[in-house]
């Protein structure tokens, strides 16, 4: 009841967000000194005013700014994000192509980060102040401190070039054909197609970029799990549990973990949000054909339809992730009331 | 009696909005709902009731910290809510507040000297030297030494902090001090010190106290008149004698009988109430107490009883009281 209302409110905010984000990029796009659209004309056509006019008309650039914006929003409602200046394809199509790669990588790395982060965090909290604890804390700090672009480089140099134990950049080995697109997540598609080798290959390719991308989130989760668990262990109800005669293990599993996970969920959300930002760097290093690379190119080329498209997509993602986190919160913590 | 009237509270209502400010369906907590009573010069009026019944809210509204939804607070003949900012500021000098939690009511980043200087600073009263003398005087009055002035709140004990709070309230020579549970957070042995101090100061400065507490023994000890609140409503008012010895309202009776008594020989019959206090967001119909009242009749759930004068100066809001 409250939850549905809450979701409705968040979705309403989403509309505002989309309008806001697109407006911001729109305004930036019209305050830049150079004209990226014309840059996409051939050298000869540039000198031909008639061609320039036709071109502008084609992109609607001859109309006043607000008209352009309304046209844009109008189209957006219909699911049309305009056409990328650079790729000359509908932005929607581009996003459909690039986004699954990003999602696959992000999901994988968040999976790694959550699994190991929580495991490390719990061990560290239980053995706090021991050498293990110091070691894990050191690793987790290292995880949040290491520049992903550099780590990616080092990993490739070491595991791919020098040792040859990891596959190279890209989503699958070059000689393999991508699976038939159902979800466009290669591992899943390959499994759906029953192509076990391909799935393994795709999974292997996820490993290095997934680790690099996940290192920050993993560090964050380790740290949060540790301190959250320590904090929960000092709460009154843990004393109650002790007074009941539960063993320390039972207390951690039954009483502390559930409560300690609540703040961890937020961090997972934050981490996921960060991932999408960090994507640009990691995708560049690992030649990962995802939204990060697309955004990088789009921004570099001032391809504004594409920039708006990507920005909207990422913002929506952010909100949706937060929404999921909030809902998870409600599942983990019965006290939460949505307002 | 008329000329000694200090404050008149008339049909005061203070509702808090609970749903988000953007929401269409506004919900309210009726923290203070249609409360009227008077405060006379030099008296101590006790306000008792269970947690959440609106005691603090009432105190703060009288102080003008909240803007009430309805009603008036007439202080020395004028409604304080009709004041403009400047007059309001003037008025602030005359009503002061002492808080329950002596630690929370002192800014942890200021020294005692800074804290006591604040009232003078805000109202631009006196020169530096005058202020210094005044502060020294205040410190003496509340039983603190001058060397405490350079300390920070966390360097003092609870009782000492509460004394600082009292000194601050006294700084501008107020007429009325609203004491919101001034001793609840203090240890038993310190509690007595503070109560005595409050009594001494009242005599010395001719102060009027609105004394809010849920400790009925303390209220009994210090107050001249007592008002009993239940769920935002005043259910009984009377002199302290009458309230304790000649209780009219069933709630007040239950409240008084529930006090644990350190006197083993005084074993009174205890009236046990059922259940908990209902939520002020959704109070019961009719008499708000009827859900827990041992004596409730059908009428109670339908009609709201008004505060009736039972005998001179003693009012109760109950259908059963004649």
């Amino acid at each position, binding site marked *: 009841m409250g939850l549905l209302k809450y979701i409705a409110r968040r979705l309403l*905010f989403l509309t*505002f*967000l989309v309008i*806001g*984000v697109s407006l*911001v990029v729109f305004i*930036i796009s019209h305050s*830049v*000194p*150079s004209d990226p659209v014309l840059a996409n004309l051939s050298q000869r056509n540039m000198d031909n005013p008639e061609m320039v006019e036709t071109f502008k008309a084609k992109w609607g650039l001859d109309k006043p700014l607000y008209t352009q914006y309304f046209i844009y929003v109008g189209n957006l409602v219909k699911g049309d994000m305009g056409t990328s200046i650079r790729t000359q394809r509908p932005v929607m199509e581009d996003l459909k192509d690039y986004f699954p790669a990003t999602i696959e990588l992000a999901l994988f790395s968040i999976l790694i980060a959550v699994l190991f982060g929580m495991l490390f965090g719990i061990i560290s909290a239980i053995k706090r*102040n021991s050498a293990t604890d*110091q070691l894990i804390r050191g690793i987790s*700090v*290292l995880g*949040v401190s*290491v*520049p*992903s*672009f*550099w780590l990616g*480089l*080092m990993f490739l*140099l070491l595991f791919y070039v020098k040792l040859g134990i990891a596959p190279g950049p890209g989503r699958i080995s070059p000689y393999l054909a991508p699976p038939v697109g159902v979800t466009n997540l290669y591992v899943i598609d390959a499994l759906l197609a029953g192509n076990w080798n391909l799935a393994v290959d795709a999974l292997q390719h996820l490993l290095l970029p997934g680790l690099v991308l996940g290192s920050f989130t993993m560090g964050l989760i380790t740290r949060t799990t540790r*301190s959250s668990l*320590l904090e929960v262990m*000092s709460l009154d109800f843990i004393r109650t549990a002790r007074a009941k005669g539960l063993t320390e293990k039972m207390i951690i599993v039954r009483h502390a973990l559930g409560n300690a996970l609540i703040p961890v969920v937020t961090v997972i959300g934050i981490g996921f949000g960060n991932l999408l930002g*960090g994507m*640009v*760097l990691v995708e*560049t*290093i690992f030649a990962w054909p995802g939204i990060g690379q697309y*955004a*990088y190119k789009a*921004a*570099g*080329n*001032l391809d504004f339809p594409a920039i708006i498209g990507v*920005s909207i997509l*990422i*913002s929506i993602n*952010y909100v949706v992730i937060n929404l999921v986190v909030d809902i998870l919160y409600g599942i983990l913590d019965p006290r939460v009331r949505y307002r | 009696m008329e000329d000694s009237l200090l404050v008149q509270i008339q049909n005061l209502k203070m509702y808090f909005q609970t749903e*988000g*400010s*953007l929401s269409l369906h506004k919900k309210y907590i009726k923290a203070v709902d249609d409360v009227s009573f008077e405060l006379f010069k030099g008296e101590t009026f006790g306000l008792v009731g269970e947690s959440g019944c609106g005691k603090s809210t009432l105190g*703060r509204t009288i*102080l003008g*910290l909240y803007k009430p939804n309805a009603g008036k607070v007439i202080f020395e003949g004028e409604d304080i809510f009709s004041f403009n900012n400047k007059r309001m500021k003037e008025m602030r000098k005359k009503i002061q*507040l002492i*808080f*329950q939690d002596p630690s*929370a*009511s*002192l*800014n*942890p980043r200021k020294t005692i000297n800074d804290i006591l200087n604040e*009232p003078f600073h*805000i*109202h631009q009263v006196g020169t530096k030297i005058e202020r210094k003398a005044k502060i020294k005087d205040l410190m003496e009055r509340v039983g603190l030494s001058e060397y405490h002035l350079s300390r920070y709140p966390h360097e003092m004990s609870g009782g000492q902090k509460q004394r600082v*709070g009292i000194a*601050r309230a006294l700084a501008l020579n107020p007429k009325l001090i609203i004491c919101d549970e001034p001793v609840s957070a203090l240890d038993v042995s310190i509690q007595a010190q503070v109560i005595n101090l409050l009594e001494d100061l009242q005599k010395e400065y001719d102060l009027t106290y609105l004394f809010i507490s849920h400790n009925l023994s303390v209220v009994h000890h210090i107050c001249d008149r007592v008002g009993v609140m239940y769920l935002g409503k005043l259910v009984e008012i009377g002199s302290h004698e009458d309230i304790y010895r000649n209780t009219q309202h069933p709630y007040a009776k239950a409240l008084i009988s529930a006090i644990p008594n350190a006197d083993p020989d005084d074993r009174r019959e205890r009236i046990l109430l059922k259940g908990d206090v209902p939520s002020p967001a959704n109070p019961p119909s009719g008499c708000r107490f009827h859900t827990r009242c041992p004596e409730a009749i059908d009428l109670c759930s339908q009609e709201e009883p008004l505060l009736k004068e039972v005998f001179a100066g003693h009012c109760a809001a109950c259908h059963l009281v004649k």
Partner: protein
Amino acid sequence: MLARIMKNNLLFSIGIIVCSLWIVIAIIAPLITPYSYLGQDLANRFQAPSSLHWFGTDSIGRDVFSRVLIGSRISLIAGLVTIILASFIGMIYGGIAGYIGGLTDEIMMRVSEMVMAFPGIILAMTISAALGPSLYNTLLAMVIIWWPNYARVMRSMVIANKENEYVEAAKSLGASHFRIFFHEIMPNSIGPVLVLATLDFGNAILLFSGLSFLGLGSPPPTPEWGAMVADGVLNFNYWWIGTFPGLAILTMAVGTNFIGDSLRDFLDPRLRKEL
């Protein structure tokens, strides 16, 4: 306090040592660099690390060691400026939102949420593509990305603190909003924001190096670490070009985060006893 924490906490001590080292290096860098950080020597390009060039040379024969040392200044300054500006803006913004509350708060917080949802790196890249890459533009973008974090913390602190009884005491004394905000609420709310800001320093350096890796920092030949790693990617086979500046980023970030992590624990009263 410092000494006491250091004694019991290995990570913290390492952090302090590493950070002090970098700060010292940043200050005296021009005095200790063996070569000019701009000096090209095409005859000696792509030299592997040796006693002459500790970290080797790059594609136009510059000494990587000298460039890494000088680069520390830019990183430190970028981190500082971002954190200071972002926390300042965030504090004011969050403070106002929290203090006024109600609809204003709601709207202000939605706006900051919008900024947070906006993909910061894309914003930075767009700004830099439009206005040309420069340190100022990058810092501008970083501040834009970062301030909402502080606004959120500040807001929650202010909301918590404005309920405090000493605030009510000031109100009942007749203090103005200005006075209440700046004398009573602000000083007590600022602490956690400042703590967050200090702890965030390493992250700011990381973000900055990431942006400069993407070519968004100051234009060449400025020795920015991120850009130097990018140079290393370009010249993949000469591992030293990218490895050392990357290690520099890593150590600086690890140093500040070691300190931050330990301080966080220390400042958290629930965890304090363990130190």
